[in-house]
């Protein structure tokens, strides 16, 4: 009997092949980096002294010792950007779908444009517009421009999947607008909110273009610092730093994967 997926055999084999290619493309850099971090091999003809690390605890101690400041800065940026992106993006997404106004569809589509604006252009325009503002604020603003579209898109899609009558029902049962939001809308959007928080985290944590442009010696995010490491230090050192950088991203991506599957649909009306 044919497998339950219902795909014809040829298509299924193609699907498996595509999955393998994708997995290789995604995993190869990580594997190379990981082996690099613990290696003393030559790289691009440059004699590598290695990071002087043999074990994982060594690695973390080494990297946090050198790049602790940048690491802390990245944590600070993420800690501000994630809640801010949700606080702005989620209500906007809800409003786009539940309280549409003339031009709201256009505005919603326009919200996706920043995704394809080069970071350099964005960074310079931020400096032009608000050069006098504190650098940290500029950095946060830059990250918001890249992450808000994801929040809007994810939450808007989730808003679309639940019956607007649920909100009407809450109102008819005596709940005001805020109580309806707290007791019905937000709980039903929770999977989408968690998903977009993870997406924002992953993007903001790894954002390089804007961060690099806006970086000052005292205000460097981890990816910007990584770049300097790659250009000035040996590969194993940079690779070690990259591993530390990836450490929180991998769990986040795994969580996104899990949410994208079953969890995301839990609690949605049958």
């Amino acid at each position, binding site marked *: 009997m044919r497998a339950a997926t219902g795909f014809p055999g040829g298509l299924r084999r193609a699907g498996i092949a595509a999955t393998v290619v994708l997995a290789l493309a995604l995993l190869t850099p990580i594997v190379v980096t990981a082996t690099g971090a613990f290696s003393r091999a030559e790289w691009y003809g440059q004699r590598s002294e290695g990071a002087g690390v043999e074990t994982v605890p060594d690695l973390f101690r080494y990297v946090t010792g050198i790049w602790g400041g940048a690491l802390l800065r990245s944590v600070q940026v993420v800690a501000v950007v994630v809640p801010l992106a949700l606080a702005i993006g989620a209500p906007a997404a809800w409003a786009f779908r539940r309280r549409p106004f003339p031009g709201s569809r256009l505005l919603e589509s326009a919200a996706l444009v920043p995704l394809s604006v080069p970071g350099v252009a964005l960074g310079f325009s931020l400096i032009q517009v608000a050069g006098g503002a504190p650098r940290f604020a500029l950095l946060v603003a830059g990250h918001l421009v890249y992450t808000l579209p994801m929040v809007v898109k994810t939450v808007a899609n989730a808003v679309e999947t*639940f*019956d607007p*009558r*649920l909100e*009407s*029902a*809450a*109102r*008819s*049962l*005596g*709940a*005001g607008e805020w*109580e309806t939001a707290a*007791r*019905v809308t937000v*709980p*039903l959007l929770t999977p989408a909110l968690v998903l977009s928080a993870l997406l924002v985290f992953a993007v903001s944590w790894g954002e390089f273009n804007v961060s690099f442009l806006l970086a000052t010696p005292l205000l460097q995010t981890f990816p910007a610092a990584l770049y300097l490491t790659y250009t000035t230090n040996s590969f194993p050192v940079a690779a070690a730093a990259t591993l530390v950088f990836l450490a929180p991203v991998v769990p986040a991506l795994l969580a996104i994967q899990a949410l994208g599957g079953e969890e995301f649909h839990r*609690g*949605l*009306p*049958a």
Partner: protein
Amino acid sequence: MKVHVEDVSFAYGREPVVSSVSMELPEGGITVVIGPSGSGKSTLLQLLCGLLHPLQGQILFDGEDVTGVPTERRDVGVVFQSYALFPHLTVRENIAFGLQTGRRRFSLRSSRRRPTRRHLEERVWDAAALLSLERLLDRKPSQLSGGEQQRVALARAVAPRPSLLLLDEPLSALDARLRRTVRAELAALLRKLGTTTFYVTHDQEEAMLLADHLVVLDQGRVVQAGDPLDLYRRPQTPFVASFLGEANLVEVEALPSGPSPVVPVRSHTPLGSFVLPGACQGGWLLVRPEDLTEDPCGTMATVLDSRGMGPHDRVILLLDTGTEVLAHFSSETAPAPGTKVRIGVRTRRPHFVAHRD
């Protein structure tokens, strides 16, 4: 609670949906609004519960103007067509929802106060018991059948004891067999509750079974309102006649009036001659299928089709004058297709639907 709708209009953009509708919902009675899809009946329900606001006109609850009052302060209970049960809450939490909302104390009516925990549990239990949901309280809506979901929706709406209960085609999502049993139960329950009820449907049988007061809506306007049986027997327009059950409408031409406009005149129709009101401008005679019977002195007709429906036989007849009529003969007495029969009208003075300008 007495509800008055006064000259209410509503439009989506430029498309009028409800056009100067006025009606009165009798206190403690069931008002059924019936109409085809797009007649504005659901919109009217949303205007009553405040999910939409009229462009014109007033809505009065016990004489108090609530036109601008938001839904949460109107003291209404709504059963939606899709039920709209909160999927993230259990049946118990769904029913309790309306007993725990904050605005309760600001509501129009003092009967809706925030109850204590014990009181809350009692009220949830009462509502659950009313709809035999005691054993389903810990389930999630997704674990319930359609009929059970419908009962939860009703329990949730009645638990806060609203002054006005609004039901938007609450049975349309159920299959035909279930709908029939639920319909009778629902009628009994709504009468027991004695809450002023506004019930929207497009199902004529549902309307006849439930309504104390029946309102027929078409294209956003009230076509006729009144006692359901009266509307069935004495519709004022061909639309009402054919929307409430099956109808033979026999065209009657304008007659020369008799010696005086109040003197009735006799009109000859394909189904026989009948006495009509004086000064007749022409119109239709309403002959319900059950009013037609085999009659040795009646009009000649040929049976075109006949089908046993169980309670009656459904017979399509072609009169010798060329008019087709539908008759319901008592069960299993219908002649076979092709047979010639003589038929007559049971009532002496069938209802006359006059032309309207």
